[in-house]
């Protein structure tokens, strides 16, 4: 018997099935052109991979088919796995869905099984043995491809979350001793904590006295988020900076009142412009239009 790189298969299967799998792979190689076309046709009929052109589908189909047959024969799914990852990386950006990927792999499994039925229909025993060898290997390949796709997609999602997190908490210095913190998106516990840390570091680095926290870009505010804001404001105060919250929409204000969140400790101003004017007042700059009542503080 040949020495084969049977790595993942359990020994019992490896002992009995390689010759059969060989025979099977041989058969599939001989009928490569027909089966490949049949598969591509069924993919198109099932309207899978609609985001790709027929030419693209055909070239991917060819590569997947060869990898698939190799994996069937050797029982080693590593090459196929690497290819599936690579393929996923390319097609995720095109909007290909999980059900499409699983669909095409299961279609190929079906196309090949049918061809086996046709080929071995005269010998029921052999057909049964062939199917015994084929089914577990084919199932494993289907699982491998599906898992690779989902893994890849989760990796993309994680990367994107990471960059969103980094992008969305900039602390900007407007003028000496005045910082702006625009918050955009969803404020969860992890992000709120990170944001607070960045803000406090910036307060110390810039010796800020006033911080304007703009939450125009925050879609919803619930009790948790409100408490995060209260804590951020309080922590900033302990660093010697007073915080002004701006951009509370009427809907959010209503929600907060309904929830009974106590924001009396926080200074809030309607919009960013008002917040900056208020900050100037706190810093002791005299505003031209209300020079009479805004006496310089120092």
């Amino acid at each position: 018997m040949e020495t084969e790189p049977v790595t993942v298969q359990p020994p019992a299967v490896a002992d009995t099935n390689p010759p059969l799998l060989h025979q099977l792979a041989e058969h599939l190689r001989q009928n490569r052109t027909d089966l490949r076309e049949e598969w591509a046709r069924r993919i198109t009929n099932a309207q899978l991979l609609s985001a790709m052109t027929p030419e693209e589908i055909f070239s991917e189909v060819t590569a997947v088919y060869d990898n698939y047959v190799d994996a069937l024969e050797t029982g080693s799914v590593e090459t196929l796995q690497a290819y599936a990852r690579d393929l996923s990386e390319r097609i995720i950006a095109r909007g290909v869905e999980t059900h499409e990927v699983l669909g095409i792999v299961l279609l190929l499994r079906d196309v090949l099984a049918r061809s086996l039925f046709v080929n071995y229909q005269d010998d029921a025993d052999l057909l049964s043995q062939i199917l015994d060898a084929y089914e577990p290997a084919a199932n494993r390949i289907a699982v491998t491809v599906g898992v690779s796709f989902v893994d890849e997609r989760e990796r993309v999602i994680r990367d994107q979350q990471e960059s969103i997190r980094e992008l969305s908490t900039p602390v900007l210095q407007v003028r000496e001793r005045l910082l702006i913190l625009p918050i955009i998106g969803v404020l969860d516990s992890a992000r709120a904590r990170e944001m607070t840390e960045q803000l406090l570091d910036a307060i110390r680095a810039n010796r800020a006295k006033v911080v304007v926290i703009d939450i125009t870009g925050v879609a919803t505010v619930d009790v948790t988020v409100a408490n995060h804001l209260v804590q951020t404001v309080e922590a900033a105060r302990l660093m010697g900076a007073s915080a002004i919250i701006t951009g509370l929409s009427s809907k959010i204000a209503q929600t907060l009142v309904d929830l009974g969140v106590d924001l009396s400790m926080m200074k809030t101003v309607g919009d960013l412009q008002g917040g900056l004017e208020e900050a100037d007042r706190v810093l002791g700059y005299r505003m031209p239009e209300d020079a009479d009542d805004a006496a310089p503080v120092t």
Partner: protein
Amino acid sequence: MAVAVLNQRDYLIASIQSDLSDTEVLQLRDDLAERVGTLRARGLIIDVAALDVIDSFVARALRSIAVTARLRGAETVVVGIRPDVAIALVQFDLNLEPIRAALDVDEALEVLDRMALKDGARDV
């Protein structure tokens, strides 16, 4: 005790040099309350920059120093709270409102001067 207390103009500056035991914290509290009265200080600055950790006991003590000092006629400003310490402090379920804070002693002096000016203006 590892606390240096300086007298500067109308103000007392207490600089904590190292972590304090609970007994020392209480001693500091009594000591400061006493001195604020005898020196007729109008402001009290507590520098905690050397503290890596402020636990709830110390936080409570700081608050009670601030409240006591106010009753004795001095405003308290805590300076040098580090970012991570500030985050930890706000997680305690503790009302820190009586504690004023500033970045460093310079800032604190400015805050106290401004408050004295306001008070003075009101008195006149």
